[in-house]
């Protein structure tokens, strides 16, 4: 063993700097949420008053509820749409409209939000003129908009899983006389269910987080959480928003930690069973 410590690799240093860059601003948010002063930049002692102020804010609370409802339904519908789209693209070979479908699945991933929001609003306005629906824009129009762009993300996640999945299991089931629909529900779906869960969670966070598209397609009735946060943040820094940010960061960190823990455990189990098979 040499006594001289090896100089860390340049990329390792950059990784540490990059992670610090990602996490320090969030740490600052968390620390200042416990500040007793209204001025977010001056430390005046520890206090949890902004959390109680947050929980008394009816506007924020009702916006949280609206956002959670929309995100739940948008994510669920996006998983249905995205999974079917991914299945069709990876398993159906060639069909008419395949290029169109695959373009419409990848384009929303990069499409600037102002364009998507504006175009969907114009659609809803024209639909209302022609058919009378939607008479009022609100939660339902936001749900459609979110479902559409979230399904693209779900499709990408699920298609990645389907591609690495060995299709011989499905073929075996079909050879043994299982009809395609049954094969899909009883063979394919159980195997790709972790990808569906990941896609659902991704869609859920994307929907919860969206400000721009929701602002375009919403009506006067529905205010989502990002809309309320945005109008407050525009006025400047507010400690109540820091408290909200801390709760969001805490929730996401906890969920991520659980996901990591279970993924690691299942990986360890898999390794162990591989070892047992080998011996």
């Amino acid at each position, binding site marked *: 063993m040499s006594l001289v410590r090896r100089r860390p690799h340049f990329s390792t240093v950059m990784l540490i700097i990059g992670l610090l860059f990602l996490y320090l601003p969030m740490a600052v948010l968390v620390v200042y949420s416990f500040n007793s002063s209204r001025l977010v930049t001056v430390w005046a002692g520890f206090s949890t008053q902004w959390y109680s102020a947050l929980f008394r804010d009816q506007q924020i609370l009702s916006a949280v509820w609206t956002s959670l409802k929309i995100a739940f339904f948008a994510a669920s519908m996006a998983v249905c749409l995205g999974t079917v789209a991914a299945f069709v693209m990876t398993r159906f070979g060639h069909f008419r409209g395949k290029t169109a479908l695959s373009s419409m699945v*990848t384009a929303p991933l990069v499409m600037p*939000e102002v364009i998507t929001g504006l175009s969907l609003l114009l659609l809803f306005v024209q639909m209302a003129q022609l058919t009378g629906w939607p008479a009022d824009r609100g939660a339902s129009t936001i749900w459609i908009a979110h479902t559409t762009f979230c*399904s693209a993300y779900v499709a990408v996640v699920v298609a990645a899983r389907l591609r690495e999945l060995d299709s011989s299991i499905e073929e075996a089931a079909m050879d043994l006389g299982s009809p395609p629909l049954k094969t899909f529900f009883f063979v394919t779906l159980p195997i790709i269910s972790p990808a569906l869960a990941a896609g659902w969670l991704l869609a859920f966070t994307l929907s919860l987080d969206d400000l721009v598209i929701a602002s375009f397609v919403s009506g006067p009735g529905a205010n989502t959480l990002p809309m309320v946060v945005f109008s407050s943040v525009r006025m400047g820094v507010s400690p109540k928003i820091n408290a909200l940010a801390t709760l969001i960061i805490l929730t996401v960190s906890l969920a991520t930690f659980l996901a*990591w823990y279970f993924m690691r455990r299942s990986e360890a189990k898999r390794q162990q069973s591989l070892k047992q098979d080998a011996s």
Partner: protein
Amino acid sequence: MMLSHLTATLRRWQLGRRAVIAFPLVWLLLFFLLPFALVLKISLSQGAVAIPPYGPLVEYADQTLNIFLNLGNYLFLLSDSLYVAAYWGSVKTAFISTVVCLLIGYPMAYAMARAPARWQLLLLLLVMLPSWTSFLIRVYAWMGILSNSGLINNLLMGMGVIETPLRMMNTQFAVVIGIVYAYLPFMVLPLYAHLTRLDNSLLEAASDLGSRKLNTFIKVTLPLSMGGIIAGSMLVFIPAVGEFVIPELLGGPDTLMIGKVLWEEFFLNRDWPIASALAMVMLLLLLVPIVWFHRYQSRELEE
């Protein structure tokens, strides 16, 4: 009998197959593609004081069919230097941010791909975690850090490095920081995906043949991760061009960006035809990058 039964089953499957294809296809045609046609339509209409605030394109009166195609909105965009400057400002800011993201993100992804296998999942989750919190709140965090009475100025003045606060908020600098901060995970993810797939034996072969590290990196690693570089760069550049939240919260009067101009035309001036024309021109500008991204992505999807 057997045969007719079989063909009936096959026909039923064929019908089912079509229905399955139709479900996502029709939804996306209706809610993704059709809206763009409507944006094009409204961009060719005349602004009007009405609800909704634009005039009709086709009108039938006195036994004549009148079709109005108003190119005035597009000509107006060209004539007013504000819009040209906003497009240029957006492309410039997005380009600088993409390059900075790549310069930070590539070494990060490289280190992650080289890390011991049991660390990789944790590192990946650590990089992605911020993007699962809230975009808005992450941009907001920088308001408290960069403002005149913010954390950095407080620290520097407290240490006596500077007398008067540095003006960082509401500048181009703040917007670039905001975009890099918000989009960095989307740069790292595809780069990491490509770099982990890199076959180590190629690098060993290069070094066995006497290639030096830098040379191997430039001639082997870099070309093999090109797909990741393109995907990551497009995932940052294209949305950044149309970014609204970041220039609105961190930018100032000198940071003109097209997403913000479009937002203001739509929500403040209620000029839907101009906003639509702005969106069409932005789409045209981004068409080449979007097609590039799509070609890369569909290759990934079909392989």
